[in-house]
Every structure is written in C-alpha cells, then in structure tokens.
C-alpha cells in the first residue's frame, strides 16, 4: 500500500519571467549602478560608470544600507522606475 507523506516545502510554484532582450547599445539609456555596501565596491562601480558614460549612457548610483540584507523594496522600486538597465556589484 502506498504511503503518504506531508510536503515539507512551501508548495509554491516559482513564477518564471522571460528576460528582456539585451539592448544593442547603451547610448541614451539610463543605467543604475547598485553598490551593495561591500568594501571597495565603489572602486569597481566608478570604473564601470566611466566606461558607460563613454558609451553614451547616463548613470545613476544607488546603495543598499548593508550587503547582508536584501535591498529594501522602496530602493528596488526606485531603480525600476528610474533606469532601463541595472548593474549590481559584489566586491571585496
């Protein structure tokens, strides 16, 4: 006789979303750079900003309060409405 177990998981189905197509150029687009507050992440992002601007992008900088917690919902929303592209940097 088959045995029955209780599902220990949250039983949620994962929502899958198709990725947006990569733009062929960043010229004229706004790129958000999210610093997660790890040491020296700014060094990496400064260089990225320089390169992006050279390619015609405008750049907005954001910063998480701490690297150890997910970005606050307000910050995620802010990035989503202000930018077309986002780069999140992890650096040590």
């Amino acid at each position, binding site marked *: 006789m*088959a*045995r029955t*177990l209780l*599902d*220990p*998981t*949250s039983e*949620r189905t994962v929502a899958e979303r198709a990725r947006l197509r990569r733009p062929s150029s960043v010229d004229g687009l706004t790129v958000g750079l999210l610093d997660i507050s790890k040491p020296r992440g700014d060094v990496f992002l400064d260089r990225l900003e320089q390169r992006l601007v050279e390619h015609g992008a405008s750049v907005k900088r954001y910063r998480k309060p*701490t690297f*150890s917690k997910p970005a606050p919902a307000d910050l995620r929303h802010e990035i989503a409405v202000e930018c077309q592209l986002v780069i999140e940097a992890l650096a040590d």
Partner: protein
Amino acid sequence: MTAAVSTDPPALPDGLVVVVKRDCETCQMVVSALVDLAARRSDVLVITQDDPLFPNSPTPVFDEDLALSWHHDIETVPTLIVRDEGAEVERTVGWQRAEWQRLTGVTDLGADLPVMRPGCGSKSVDPHLVDALRARFGGSVLAARRVEVADAEDEIEFMFTRGWSDGLPVVPPTEERVLAMLEGTHRAADDIVAVIPPDLGPATVEKVAIAAVMAGCRPEYLPWVLTAVEAACTDEFNMHGLLATTMPVGPVLICSGPGTRAIGMNSGGNALGQGNRANSTIGRALQLVVRNVGGGRPGEIDRATHGSPGKVGFCFAENDAESPFGRLAAEHGIDDGVDAVTLFAGEGTRCIVDQISRHPESLAKSMAASLLTMLHPKLIMAFDAVLVIGPEHARVFAEAGWDRAAIVAAISEHLTRPGSELVRGAGGIEEGLPEAFAEAPSLPKFRDGGLMLTYAGGGAGLFSEIIGGWVNDEVGSKPVTRAVTY
C-alpha cells in the same frame, strides 16, 4: 496507513451510554450491573471496543473503528454517560457505585459490587493506536500537500531525491507523526509562525511540525523549534544574510530555563557535542525549515565558502540551574524561571585550554588572549562572541566572588589594542583596519554587549569554548532572545 477522513462525531442516543471493553477486569465486573440496568431502563446503550460479543447481554454496539470512542473523548472504560436532548449531561469513569446509582437513578444498582474500582485505559487512547486514530479522525487539520510514496520506493531515499534532506536521513513526515508532533503546542496548525527567507515562504505551525518530525524531534521540543523559527526570521537576526554569507556561520541556539531539563536537554558533559536527542534535533529542525520552506540551500542562496558542522543544527542548553553567574537570557531581559532561547549567528567552537590559572585575573587574561585571535587578530568590533565557560573555569571566578559583569569587565580590560597594531600592513599583515585608526590609542575587540557569557559543560576539564560570530548589529545580525511560547 489510513487515509484521513473528516467525520462528524457519530451521534449517540439520549439516555444512558456505557463504553466497555473485554480486556478490562472492571468492565467484566460491571456486566451484572449492566444486565440489571437494561432490565430496568429501556434507554441503555452499551458500546464495546474490542469484542462484539462482550458483553453477551445487553447486546452491545461494536465500536470497531473506535470512531465513537474517539469523538466522544473516552479515556477510561467503563465510562457511563448520561445524555439528554442530543447532548451529554454528565459522565463517570471506572466503577463508582454511588455515582452510577445517582446517574442512572437505580438506587440499588450493583449492590453486590465493591464500592469503587478504577477503570482501564480506553482502547482509543492506547499508545499503539492513538497516532493512527488522530490521523484518521483529526487529519483534516493538516493542510500540507499529500505526497504518495510508491510501494517499491524507499521513503528515506525518496526524501533524499526530492532534496528535502540536509544530507542525513530524515524521519518520514507521515500524518500520524505530524499530528502527534502538533500535540506539543497549543498553537493552531494553520497559525503562521514566520515568513522564511530566502523565498519568503510562510511557515505555518504545521510546516514547522513537519520539519520537527523530519529532524527527529519529540513533540515536547516543538515549542522550542517554533520559538527559534520566530527568532531567526526577524530583521534583527537576519536569517537571509546569515544564509547568503560566504562566512561559515549558522544559527546557534542557546536554550535555558526549567523547560530544558523537562525535555532532557544536555547542558553538562559534551553539551556542544553529539548524543542528546533534544540538543541534536531542535537546531536541525530550524535549519530544515529554512531549507524546505525558505528554499535556502547550499550552492544556491547559501554561498558559504566552507560552512561548518554546526550548520546541520547547533543547539545546546545552558546549565542555568547551577551557573554561578546567571544565564545569558537574563542579560537579554528574560525573567527568572521563563524558558528562553537565544539565537546567535555563530561559527564552530574553539577551545580555550588553561589548566594552570587559579587566580581570576590570570584566567581572564588567558581568555582575552584567546578571544583576541577570533576570526582575525587584527579585526575588531564587527563580530560578537559567545564564551561558553566550563564549570572548572567558572569555579575560579566564582570563588573570587566575580559575577557576570565582573568577568566580562576583567576579560574586556585585556581585549584592547592600539590602532597602530591593527591597521593594514601592521605586523607585516596586509589585513587590518583602515589607516584612519592608526592613531587610536586603545581599540576594543568587542562592541558593548558583544561578549556574551554562558555556562555549560561538565565533568573534568579546565576549558572554555569560544563561539565566534558573524558581522554584527545593523550591518549583519543581532543576537535575538525570545521567551518560549507554548
């Protein structure tokens, strides 16, 4: 196993109902009174639990599946119930002649029987049957999806295959076991305990009970697991970050209060080691909730570079009953006598060996020297520590009359170093503090409250243990202490 059926309680008629079983000497003794009763009243119903032919007379109704007994909460046989207008009016258990006479109105009932004879356990509360009956008749409280294991499949392997295990075998969470586990708390099965990172899955009491079964807990451990899950999933404790970090840390559960002794936790010899069921399974249950409800798994959101053995589950009891310097929970505002659990984001343990110091000043210096090296000798303030002081070390402080504050103060006195020794490059070591700290004359290893004392361990050994922490405070994790809710 039996499928759960949601049944309404089977109705009993008005009048007198007597529940008996053959396998009970008191029930056999009262048969003569039942015969007499049936002769004098027309509204007597006898229900038998184990033998449809017992008693021969009056003819009984056979409660073969024990549904009547279960739903009418029969705990003892014989039970005499008086019913009127579809409801129970009164009942008596065992044989108490005066009570039977009063309830039946037959004033000379059982005159030849003893005045009193205790009854026997009802078959519906037989320990071998009760879990199955609870699943059969109470299963509707369980909302979790049912997963069928085919005949040919091994259920342990089945659970490994689905990724439900932490790498060790888990106990199959059957309806019987989960319902039995839920008996360990007064909370409703569908209560939401916490939202579990990283997937932010809501954990009901039922889901936590499932994890507790899988971890190997007994029902009486469940309140500790529930409290630990609540404490872990707070913004202060930051379970998400603890999971995602590359550092080798996990939740360390430090339990105290009389309840630790009631459930048989170990706070003595090998308290931080293996071999005690409660210590070994309570912390594991929390981690299984994080894994299965929260979706936090190594190699996915869990990015630990090495991890540590404690991430299977790290839980121990403080010996607060014998501690010469109180308990950690008191430091965090919990009243005496209240069961409590502290969650600390900690790595593995490291031993302080000092078998020579008999003066508290010497021992404090010894401990400080060991603590200074925690995580890195040149990194300070960013990490807390729990110092588990063993009895033979604690005695050195106790004999000098040092309390908790005095011990922390004495150790802390030797935990400071000048910034010049700690900055990057100092001592030929590139790791260290930014150059801005170079002029600071004295920098402490720990922030205020960052060195926490507990008392555990047993038998011989002039040892204590350091449990190093993770990034502390707002940036990372704060220790969270909660009173256990039953």
